[in-house]
């Protein structure tokens, strides 16, 4: 173990890494442009993919705040020396939020005509099932009594209210916590630690009560007739695993570049345990939702899974369980596996692909339906957002005054952490 670490070291974000992330962004733009130019069903695919990645992007940044908040509240010692990484995610949340809101706005404004059951209607590309014109106007030929009953929640002003207020509050609290932590570096003492603790509690309470509503609105309402109480926690589990996987990947990347030399296999081991455990938890909520819907066999609920068992999705439906449950279960089961950076890295890559697929299965059947695809739009949009995320997060890490919270009261515990 190295005994002397240079805590004044700064990260420089230049060269190939920067170029690759910019290439990713360009690919994303190309993918989106390709979809729009191709027209027809491709436009729907572009919107669905944008929503998917916009939501994924927001969720990973949110997971950064969630991770640092619960680590502070639980007085975790091991994570103190890596907390700057999730804090960088938090700083990117405002940008991610704006992008998500822009995507949703474009998807709501941009309409097209569809013919369903012999009836032609003009619907927006996103949230067609509740935001279509006249759907909640009694007497309109598009009128839908069930959606009319839900209009207290499913209406444009309230929807925007949820997006802006929730994402605004999450961003504010996340950035505040990161700033206090940076102030602690220069000021020392316990005052900043206390403030972070307090803000972390406030964040967790607000987040715990509001995140399910956020998931109900942004994702579940794509198929506005369908409902499941578990959906919020299911999304919470997906968000958490994705966030942990991205945190681990960023750490492994930075270590390969020669930074964060104070982190070792013990820290990776703890992250690995969380990834392993919460992947099982994800599968647990996935199964519980599926099982109870299957068991009750109520048409208004089981229709959701019927759609996902059509030939277009069935293969992907089961692959979801393989990637997000079986893969981490088998790859990270043993103690040694969690301590090998390459093993953790590959598992995290599988999990990020897996949770992309998980969101794909939440979004696509209710939007693109049988016109699903997996090529330019999907891969390039993913590349675009991955590039953007990498570019922004690395930028924030480079700008941070230090890579380690030098005066964190648990820093010594983290530096000498061993399992």
């Amino acid at each position, binding site marked *: 173990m190295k005994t002397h670490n240079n805590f004044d070291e700064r990260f420089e974000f230049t060269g190939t890494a920067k170029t690759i992330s910019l290439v990713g962004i360009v690919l994303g733009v190309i993918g989106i442009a390709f979809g729009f130019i191709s027209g027809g069903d491709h436009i729907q695919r572009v919107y669905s993919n944008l929503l998917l990645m916009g939501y994924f992007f927001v969720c990973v940044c949110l997971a950064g705040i969630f991770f640092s908040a619960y680590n502070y509240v639980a007085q975790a010692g091991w994570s103190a020396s890596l907390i700057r990484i999730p804090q960088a995610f938090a700083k990117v949340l405002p940008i991610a939020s704006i992008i998500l809101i822009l995507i949703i706005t474009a998807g709501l404004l941009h309409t097209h005509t569809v013919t369903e059951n012999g009836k032609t209607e003009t619907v927006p590309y996103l949230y067609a099932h509740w935001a279509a014109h006249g759907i909640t106007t009694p007497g309109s030929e598009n009128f839908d009594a069930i959606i009319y009953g839900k209009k207290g929640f499913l209406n444009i002003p309230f929807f925007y209210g949820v997006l802006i207020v929730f994402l605004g509050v999450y961003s504010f609290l996340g950035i505040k916590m990161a700033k206090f932590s940076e102030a602690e570096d220069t000021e020392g003492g316990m005052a900043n630690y206390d403030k972070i603790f307090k803000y972390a509690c406030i964040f967790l309470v607000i987040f715990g009560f509001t995140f399910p509503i956020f998931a109900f609105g942004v994702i579940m309402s794509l198929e506005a007739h369908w409902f*499941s109480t578990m959906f919020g926690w299911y999304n919470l589990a997906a968000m958490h695993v994705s966030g942990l996987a991205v945190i681990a990947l960023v750490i492994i990347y930075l270590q390969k570049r020669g930074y964060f030399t104070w982190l070792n296999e013990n820290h990776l081991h703890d992250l690995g345990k969380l990834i392993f455990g919460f992947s099982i938890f994800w599968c647990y909520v996935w199964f519980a939702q599926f099982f109870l819907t299957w068991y*009750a066999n109520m048409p208004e609920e089981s229709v959701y899974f019927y759609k996902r068992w059509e030939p277009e999705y069935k293969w992907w439906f089961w692959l979801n369980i393989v990637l997000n449950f079986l893969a981490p279960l088998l790859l990270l089961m043993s103690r040694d596996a969690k301590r090998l950076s390459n093993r953790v890295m590959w598992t995290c890559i599988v999990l990020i692909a897996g949770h992309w697929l998980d969101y794909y299965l939440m979004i696509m059947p209710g939007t693109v339906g049988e016109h699903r695809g997996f090529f330019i739009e999907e891969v390039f949009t993913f590349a675009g957002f991955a590039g953007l995320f990498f570019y922004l997060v690395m930028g924030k890490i480079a700008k941070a005054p230090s890579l380690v919270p030098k005066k964190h009261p648990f820093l010594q515990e983290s530096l000498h952490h061993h399992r």
Partner: protein
Amino acid sequence: MAHHHESIIREPLMTGKDMTYARITNEILLPVENKPNKAWWIGFVVSALGALLWVVSISLTFWYGLGEWGLNKTVGWAWDITGFVWWVGIGHAGTLISAVLLIFGQNWRNSINRSAEAMTIFAVICAATYIVAHMGRPWLAYFTLPLPNQYGSLWVNWNSALMMDVFAISTYFSVSLLFWYTGLLPDIASIRDRAKGLRRRIYSILSFGWTGSLKTWQRFETVSLILAGISTPLVLSVHTIVSFDFATSLEPGWHTTIFPPYFVAGAIFSGFAMVQTLLLVTRKVLGLENYITMFHIESMNKIIMLTGSIVGVAYITEFFIAWYSQVEYEQYAFINRATGPYWWAYWSMMSCNVISPQLFWSSKLRRSIPFSWALSIVVNIGMWFERFVIIVTSLHRDYIPSSWAMFYPTWVDVGVFIGSIGVFFTLFLLFIRVLPSVAIAEVKLLLKTASEQAKMKQIKEGHLEPAEVQYYKESLTKYDSVDMADYEKV
């Protein structure tokens, strides 16, 4: 983790001056090696009378059948299954403390795991009695097992969640018992080494020939971790299956998908409340203030607040989705809960489980022993009502208004429930007389690293951030077992 880099701001897990390994053994074994005091006898007589009530009520049930209970055609499940789930839920804290907190390296569990695990075993025993009791013909209990038989196609119904329950709970009971007993081995050996005569013989057999060699300890650590790994999924599985009982078999079609994790959170919530109920009294009566400190009490209160809030999110989500679903039956089920004839049960549940734990945001209340104790009782009442609301309120008004009915318990219903509490306390009181209520070997691990005395030594040595030392001293003021006068000079 307990090592010499532990931050000074971590609050001590053991208080007291001049603590030694010998003193720890002596203090914890005091009730085991001496005649019980008056408080114990009073508690025991009251509990045993309760247990007697249970014997009478359950005998009547077996003799005359389930007609002794207040069940009717519409409400075919009531206090019995409510009591069953209540006990299973309470049984969750033990495994959470022994397994999950072990995996997370939370060494404050060392002082409370023993009693919590014992409580788990006794609670699951109480729950198991309900399973047998409401079979109606308990002598046919073996029908729940998939045994080859000569009755043609008579076979257990694997599609029934109640069937899965038999397996979930028996697995849970076996693993919990194994975990508890394995942890007890070094402590039983300590009693053996100090005992004489027949007592020594008995504890000698019970200790499985524990030698205390390095190899034994190594195996002990390994087996603890393996059992923790096996138990962790069990914390989730048992109450998941229990939640399936209601999500799949109350009213045809009625369910909410959030049930499994929300039941698990509720179980941990009630389990910690019961640990608090027991330990706050045990701590005082057995003089364990140095081991079960204010930090432990406060931490448990925080978990009660957290799990109570999780349950609260689930309640609100259920209500919201019932409205959002726009399904008439779904909506009625919830409107009937809040405003129907059982509104008082619903609002008791809401105020006890969701609103009252929020009082623990106040550090003053969180650190008040009488308040914590009272709230732990409130939470247990609330969790009883939660199951009552889910079961009876869902059943009493089904799809056909002509079959709507109310449920009125008979004295036998009440007797079985109150009696089971008597059985539980009788077992717990016997336990603290014959086995150490705190894991001696495990709290000894805290002495050199996480005790007040070790931290005092660290402060005297210097080399610490003054701000952090000050922070630590301030945190000590809440302890009822720390003399702040000792800190004036250092």
